[in-house]
């Protein structure tokens, strides 16, 4: 398997990196959409994140990534119950980052009858799909805007319910599938269905760096990586470990971060000023700000945290106004300025 480019060696693109870290700290933020120019390191960043994530505990022998500390198992294998009265045994496993490649078929996404066992033993067994593999981890879709519609429908349903229900070829199974959806794409090649857009907690716009120094650095590091991946990884190992520790600490610390009324009011005011639909905007804004506060080791969510996550949390939730030429980012920034200046 190809080695991944180290996360900390990615030059610039701070908003994207921050959004990915926030989603890793608090999965309930609800996914990240990375939209932008070609050749800006979108997929590189996601794959780099995968190499960085701390490990998680998984019930031994469970094909659905069940958590041994969860009160009860819901998975189709019923893994917790099967181990009787003994304490559930678990092992450490990397947090999955599962690729959903374009051209994946429905049976591989949701899972289907295990063909091999059916053919050789005449047994009706279920073979879990990508959704099962992504449970408690990340599901990454490159070129998400080109994904076929029927797969999008399917993802929307599962993402909303946190559960994958399979009813096909005589198999009837349900298993939990809670994952952080990460999508990337280039808006020039087609846009995203509004329903799917809404599913993403944060949305980031990436642009090609235009200043020479940054570009040189990008090319230089890329070249060094390609020449000798092992040495390059070695060189960046410490930096990556630092990010990993920060991430672990932020995860543990998350529950202790206070969100007081002042922050809630601010978030509500901001969403009202922008006229976002529904309450998802507020929720995401607060959660993202809390994750950010936790990453920075703060005790409570402050205005500064809200300001920094406002654009990624809200820019894709504004009502489209085809006659307003100013981009949604500017609109969010304007509202933030007005609100926090007061």
């Amino acid at each position: 398997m190809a080695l991944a480019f180290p996360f900390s060696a990615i030059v610039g693109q701070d908003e994207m990196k921050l959004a990915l870290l926030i989603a890793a700290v608090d999965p309930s933020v609800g996914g990240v959409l990375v939209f932008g120019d070609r050749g800006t390191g979108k997929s590189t960043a996601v794959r780099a994140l995968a190499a960085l994530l701390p490990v998680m505990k998984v019930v031994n022998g469970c094909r659905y990534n069940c958590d041994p500390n969860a009160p009860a198992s819901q998975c189709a294998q019923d893994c917790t119950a099967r181990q009787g009265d003994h304490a559930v045994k678990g092992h450490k496993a990397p947090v999955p980052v599962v690729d959903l490649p374009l051209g994946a078929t429905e049976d591989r996404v949701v899972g289907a009858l295990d063909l091999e066992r059916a053919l050789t033993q005449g047994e009706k067994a279920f073979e879990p799909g990508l959704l099962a593999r992504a449970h408690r981890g990340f599901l990454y879709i490159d070129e998400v805007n080109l994904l076929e519609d029927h797969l999008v429908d399917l993802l929307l349903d599962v993402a909303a319910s946190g559960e994958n229900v399979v009813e096909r070829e005589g198999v009837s199974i349900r298993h939990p599938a809670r994952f952080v959806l990460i999508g990337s794409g280039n808006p020039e090649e087609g846009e995203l269905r509004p329903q799917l857009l809404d599913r993403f907690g944060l949305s980031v716009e990436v642009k090609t760096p235009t200043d020479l120094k940054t570009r040189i650095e990008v090319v230089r590091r890329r070249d060094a990586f390609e020449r000798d991946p092992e040495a390059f990884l070695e060189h960046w190992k410490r930096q990556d470990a630092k990010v990993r520790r920060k991430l672990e600490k932020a995860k543990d610390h998350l529950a202790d971060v206070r969100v007081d009324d002042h922050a809630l009011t601010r978030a509500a005011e901001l969403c009202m000023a922008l006229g976002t639909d529904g309450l998802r905007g507020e929720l995401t804004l607060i959660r993202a700000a809390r994750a950010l506060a936790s990453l920075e080791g703060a005790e409570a969510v402050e205005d500064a945290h809200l300001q920094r996550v406002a654009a990624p949390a809200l820019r894709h939730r504004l009502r489209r106004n085809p006659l307003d030429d100013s981009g949604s980012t500017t609109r969010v920034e304007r509202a933030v300025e007005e609100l926090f200046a007061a």
Partner: protein
Amino acid sequence: MNDDRAPQLSPWADACVAAALVAVDPHGVGGALVRALPGPVRDRWLDLLRSLLPPALPLRRLPAHVTDDRLLGGLDLAATLQAGRPVAERGLLAEADGGIVLMAMAERATPSSIAHLGAALDRGEVILERDGLAMRLLARIGVVAFDEGVADDERAAPALADRLGFHLDLHRITVRDAIDLELDPETVAMARERLREVTLADDVIEALCGASLALGIASVRAAILALRVARAAAALDGREAVEAADAALAARLVLAPRATQLPFVESDEPPADDDTPDDPPDDQEGEEQEAQPEEVQRLEDMVLAAAAAAIPEGLLAMLRLESLRRSGRSAGTAGAFQASKLRGRPLGTRRGLPRAGARLNLVETLRAAAPWQPLRRQERPRPVQRVEVRQDDFRVTRFKQRTESTAIFAVDASGSSALHRLAEAKGAVELLLADCYVRRDRVSVLAFRGALAELVLPPTRSLARAKRTLGGIPGGGGTPIATAIDTARDLADQVRRAGQTPVVVLLTDGRANVARDGTGGRAQAHADAMRSARSIGETGIMCLVIDTSAKPEPKARELADAMGAHYLALPRADAAMLSAAVRSTGVLEGRR
């Protein structure tokens, strides 16, 4: 060897060097996008590439409409049935590992094939999640894409072009120019061995990055590709370190074809090749050159000069035209020709025979047969190790057909449509766009003024692109309605051939004053317009004429009748009314 490379600027020599460099490092340099029609020149180039590529490396041809299972791999039917267990079959991409995938008619490739090629080029592997199989296979490929587009905006997808090192144009090369050059497979083989050892100084990176920025190339990938090309060039020349000449070659072959602006070359330092076609007299200097050491600066200038010299003549004029079309920086023209056949949404499978039109769903069929295998084996007098599939196991896929529609807006941008009216029309188009976008229809915009009708927005689903384009339409000039209708008809025909339903919406005041041949004169212009209108009427393409003049204009009505179109007079049209009116006719929703 050296003679072929350095000073010659002949496109054919460049193309040959490019072929050699592709053969040296197919995956590294990404490959080549070759704009050429099939013909002896192209064949000769391909023969050269084939002869240079080490014989052990695969060169696989990719048909334009390759299916995903052949591209990526999938279930091998025969082997699966033989073995009684799923047997995977490698796809084209995995089969071409280490070598080259050859793609004809790249401009017509489907977005999904492009995406798969792009992923393989980026990562050197194929991830397979199909037909109950999950695998990762190495696919370190280079891609040679033949772009056979004729029209200016008929081009290979930018997502692919961005990843291919060389962009060659063989259109202008005649057979006589395409002489054999002294490039031999041994040199290439030696270069391949040397490649890993080639070192590269930091100033080369800086020079290539600086040059790519000065040429207005947005994607960082270009600089990375140029770097790899420079390295391959050094290897090809038998050297262990990248030198200035290699960097200059990379700039010429990789950066120059991607330039979107001419760099400002200082005139006191004559560029490497002394007859640079047209240096702009501008002496404005780039702002980013403060802290660079002299040495780097000189290399960068050299690299830049090499690139500038290779920028084709007339590029500047073309670029100006482009910027008229769109104000954005990195717009692609892809969307238009990615007219993939939507196969419709699979509705699941049902029992049935794979007769005409019905496609056998192999995996489902096997799944249906699977549970019965033990029983069926017992029925047999002699047990056989094969899967028994019977007629009632057959499953065929059902598709829900959804024909896409493409709305073609022909917008009158002439002087007779007052300026604010043009603004309203743009507004209406944007509202309709937003609406089309929700329904996933495509839209396209033609603007006509002066003697021309120009396709300012090829059919697209991207609201972002559409908006940017509309913002840049200039107004003023005569009203060439005949030309506008003809152009709209051609486009509608194209859309129809792609299996979609076109709808033409003509926004005009109906007062034609430019005839088809571009000359003035109201009478002739109107007669021409009527003739064009009748001809589009005969094709049965659904049309809508929106009369934007202050008072309803009888001529617009006449036009509409001749076109067999719905007619709408919207004198004080504001954008919202206009879009509501168009929608209320149900034309756009008409054939769903």
